[in-house]
C-alpha cells in the first residue's frame, strides 16, 4: 500500500512539472514565436521603453524558459523576491507567483477564493449524488415505466442544456422575476443564511447537469448488475429485495460512480468557470477567467496547478477507496 502511494505521488509530481512547462510554453513561447512583445502588453496606453524593460526584468522574460520554470518551483518552497527600479516585493513561501496586474501574491488570492469554489463544488456534489443516484436506481428498478422514461427525459435535458443557459434561466425566473432568491454571493463568515441563499441557484444549476449524467450512468450500471449471477444467487437465498439492492447491487454500482465523482470534483475544485461567471461567484473559476482576459499568467499558472493537484489527489483517493468498496480490488 505504501509503495503504491509513493509511486502515485511521484507520478503526480512529474505530471505537475509537465503541466507547468506546457502552460509556460503557451504563454511565453508561442507569443514570442508570433513576434509579440509580451512585456508591452503589461504596460499601459503610453508605453514607456523603461517600463517595458522593467516589466520584462520583473517577470523574468529575458531569462531562458527553463530558468523561469526553475524559479517558479523554487518559489513554492523557499519564496521569491521580485525587484526592479528600486521596488522590492517579497513573496513568501509557498510563492505560486506574483500578479503584476493586481500587485498581489498568488497564494493568498487562491486561498481567498478557494472556499467559494469548494463550497460550490461540494454543495452541488451532494445534490447531484442524492438526486442522480436516486433517479438512476429507481429508473433501473422500474425499467420501462412512465417514471423511468420521465426521469431519463429530464436527464437528457440536463446533459444537453449548457450551464449558461440553465443558469441565466434560473436567475431570470427565481431571482429577478419571482424574487425568491437573491442569488448574490455572501461570504459564509458574514452570514450563513446569506451564503445559503446565494449558493442555492448555483448548486441547483450545476447539480442539474451532473445529476443527469450520474442518473444515466447509475441506471445503465445498475441494470447490468441486476442481471449478474450473484444477484440471482442472493435472491435465490431468499434475501429481501431491499437488501439485495442495497448490499449487493449498489456496492458494485458505486465503483464507476466513485471514479466519475473523483474526476468531476477534482475538475470543479479547479474552478467551475461557467457557473462562477454566470452567478458572479468570486471563486477560482472567475479568477482564472479574468486572468485569461488580462493575460495575467501567474494567476493562470496558480489556478492550473491547483486544478491539476485537485484532480490528481481526487484520483488517488478514489483508487484507495476502490479497495474499501470492492474487496476484489487489491492495490498492487
Amino acid at each position, binding site marked *: 500500500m505504501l509503495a503504491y502511494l509513493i509511486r502515485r505521488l511521484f507520478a503526480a509530481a512529474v505530471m505537475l512539472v509537465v503541466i507547468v512547462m506546457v502552460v509556460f510554453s503557451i504563454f511565453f513561447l508561442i507569443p514570442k514565436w508570433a513576434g509579440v512583445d509580451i512585456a508591452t502588453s503589461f*504596460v499601459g*496606453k503610453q508605453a514607456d521603453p523603461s517600463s517595458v524593460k522593467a516589466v520584462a526584468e520583473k517577470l523574468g522574460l529575458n531569462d531562458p524558459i527553463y530558468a523561469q520554470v526553475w524559479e517558479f518551483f523554487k518559489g513554492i518552497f523557499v519564496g521569491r523576491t521580485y525587484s526592479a527600479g528600486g521596488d522590492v516585493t517579497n513573496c513568501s513561501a509557498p510563492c505560486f507567483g506574483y500578479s503584476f496586474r*493586481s500587485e498581489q501574491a498568488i497564494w493568498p488570492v487562491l486561498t481567498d477564493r478557494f472556499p467559494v469554489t469548494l463550497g460550490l463544488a461540494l454543495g452541488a456534489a451532494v445534490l447531484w449524488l442524492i438526486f442522480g443516484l436516486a433517479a438512476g436506481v429507481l429508473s433501473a428498478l422500474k425499467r420501462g415505466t412512465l417514471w423511468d422514461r420521465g426521469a431519463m427525459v429530464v436527464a437528457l435535458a440536463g446533459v444537453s442544456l449548457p450551464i449558461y443557459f440553465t443558469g441565466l434561466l434560473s436567475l431570470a425566473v427565481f431571482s429577478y422575476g419571482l424574487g425568491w432568491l437573491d442569488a448574490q454571493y455572501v461570504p459564509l463568515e458574514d452570514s450563513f443564511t446569506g451564503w445559503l441563499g446565494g449558493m442555492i441557484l448555483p448548486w441547483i444549476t450545476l447539480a442539474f447537469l451532473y445529476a443527469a449524467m450520474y442518473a444515466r450512468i447509475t441506471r445503465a450500471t445498475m441494470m447490468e448488475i441486476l442481471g449478474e449471477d450473484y444477484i440471482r444467487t442472493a435472491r435465490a437465498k431468499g434475501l429481501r429485495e431491499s437488501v439485495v439492492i442495497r448490499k449487493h447491487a449498489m456496492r458494485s454500482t458505486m465503483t464507476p460512480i466513485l471514479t466519475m465523482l473523483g474526476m468531476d470534483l477534482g475538475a470543479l475544485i479547479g474552478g467551475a468557470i461557467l457557473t462562477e461567471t454566470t452567478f458572479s461567484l*468570486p471563486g477560482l473559476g472567475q479568477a482564472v477567467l479574468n486572468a485569461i482576459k488580462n493575460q495575467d499568467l501567474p494567476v493562470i499558472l496558480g489556478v492550473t496547478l491547483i486544478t491539476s493537484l485537485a484532480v490528481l489527489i481526487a484520483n488517488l483517493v478514489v483508487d484507495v477507496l476502490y479497495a474499501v468498496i470492492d474487496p476484489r480490488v487489491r492495490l498492487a
Partner: protein
Amino acid sequence: MTTQRTSGRRKQALAAAAVVAALLTTAACGGGDSDNGGSKNGAAGFDAANNKVAQASEAKKGGELKFASAQDADSWDTTRGYYGFMWNFSRYYSRQLVTNATEPGKAGAGVTPDLATGLAKVSDDGKTYTYTLRDGITWEDGKPITSKDIKYGIERVWAQDVLSGGPTYLKEVLDPKGEYQGPYKDKSKDKLGLKAIETPDDKTIVFKLPKANSDFEEMLALTSASPVRQDKDTKSKYGLHPFSSGPYKFQSYSPGKDLVLVRNTEWKQESDPIRKAYPDKISIKFFSNANDLDARLIAGDYDLDLAQTGMSPQGRTTALKQHKGNLDNPVSGYIRYAVFPQSVKPFDNEHCRKAVIYGADHVSLQTARGGPVAGGDIGTNMLPPSVPGSEGQKYDPYEMAGANKNGNVAKAKEELKACGKPNGFKTTIAVRNNKPVEVATAESLQASLKKVGITVDIDQYDGAQTPGIIGSPSNVKKKGYGIIIMGWGPDFPSVQGYGLPLWHSDYILDSGNNNYALIKDKTIDGLFDDYVNTLDDAGKEKIATEINHKVMEGGYYLPFVFEKFLNWRSSRLANVYTTDGYSGMYDFVNLGLKSTK
C-alpha cells in the same frame, strides 16, 4: 439523420424562445416609465441627466452609494490608473491642484481650483505656473497636505519602471530630455530632485516648463498629478490602498471582488470647493456576468455602472422598453474608426485609402456599432464633439452622413483608378477578438468593400495583446494589416489630449505605437507646435480645427461613429449629470441619494 438534426434545431429554437420569453416577462415586472417626464418609480426621465443636472435638490447626506462593474480598474494608484472611470472615481479619495469643473456637459471639461486657491498665475511667456495651496487641506491622518507632497506625487510619474500604466504627459512636458530618474532612484535626501518643480514653502508650488504648453493646466487636472505622501508610498502596491486626500478613504479592497470607501473624517468641507460628499459610504461590487449586472441595476440593487460604457444588448432592450426614464444617452467622447497603416501597400497611396472611405457603407457600420442610440451618430471626421475646435457632423469632407452614407461605388472606383488599382485589391483587417461589436464592424466593412472590388480578409487577434500586435509597426507590416479597427477618446478635452499620440510623427513607436497610420506630416507636426504655444482659447480651437482637417484630407482614417452610450441611473440617485470632463460619464464625485436608507 437529417430529420433528427432538424428536430434538434427546433428544440433549441423552442428552448431559446422560452428563455427570451421568461426574461422579458420577468423584466416586465418592474413597471413602466414615461419617455421624458419622470416616472412612477421616481426616475428623472429619459436623458434628464444628459448635459444637465437632474434632481439636484433631492440629494440627502448619508446612505450607501452602490456601484456595480464588470471590470476592475487598471489600478487605483493615482499615478498608474488610465481607465476613464478610474479617473472619475479617484476624485473621492484624491485631490489635485486643479480639477475638472463639477458642471454638466461642456462646462465640466473646464478646469477649476481644488487644492490650490485659484488657477495658475502664468508668467514667463507661459513657461512658469505658480499655485498657492488652500488652508485646512489634510491627509486622512489629519496631517496637512503640503506642496512637497504634491511634488512627490507628480515625481512618481517618472518612475515608469515601477509605476507603469498611467499617462506620462507631465513627464514629457516638464522633463522632455528625461534627465530625472524618478523618486526611487533620486539621490537627494528629500527625494525631491526634479528641477522643474520648486516648493519654496509648504504653501507654494512653482512649475518651470522648458517649453510652453498651453494645455499644461489640463495635465495638472489629471489624476496622475495627485499628491502622495512619501512615508505612505508603498510603490507598486500603492493602488491596493491609496492614502486619501479627499472626502473618502479606503476601508477595504479585494481586487476583482469589491471595494468599499468610507468617510475620511479628517476632510473638511470648507477646504474643498467642489466636493459635496453626500453619501456616507461608497461601494463597488465587481461582476463577471454583464447580463447579471444589468439585471441587478434594473432591479434596483445597485445605483450605476462604474465603467459607464453602456448596457449590454439584453439589458438595453429591457431598459428601453420598461425603464426609459432611468436612461441617459450621452456622447462618450470616443470615436470608433478604421485606420490605414501607410506601411502596408497599397495604403501608401492616398487614393487607395480614399477608395475604402467612399466604398464603405456608413449606415451599415453605424448599425454594427449598435445603431444611432446605442452606437452613436455617423462619424464624419476625427475630432470628438467634446473637444474644443470640433465641428461635429458639420464637417463631413467625404459626405459620410450625407449623400454617401450608404457608400458611393462610382466614387470609390474613381479613386481606385487614380491609385492604379482599377480592379481593386486585397488586404487584411485586424480586429480585436474580444470586442464582438468591432468584429461586426469588420464584417460590415468587408461586405461593402466587396462591391467595389476590394477583397478583405479579417484577422481576429488576441485583444489582450493589442499594444504588442498592432502597436508594433513592424508586426503590422509583416502581417499585412492594411486596415486596423480601433477607437480612441481624449485624455483631456483638447486636440493635444486626443490627437497628439495618434497624429504626431514623434509618437511613432517601435512598440506600444498609437500612430497606426504612421503619419509623418510636417504641417500637422507644425500645427501641434503652434497649438502648445497658443495661450488664448479661440486660437487653440482654430488650430484644433485645422489639424482635424489636415488629418481628414490625408484620408488616413475612416470614422464609424461619434460614440454614444445608454447608461443606467437608479431612481435613488440625485444630483446626477453627465460631464464632458469625463467623456460623457456621470460626474461621480457629487452624486447623492434621495433617501439614506
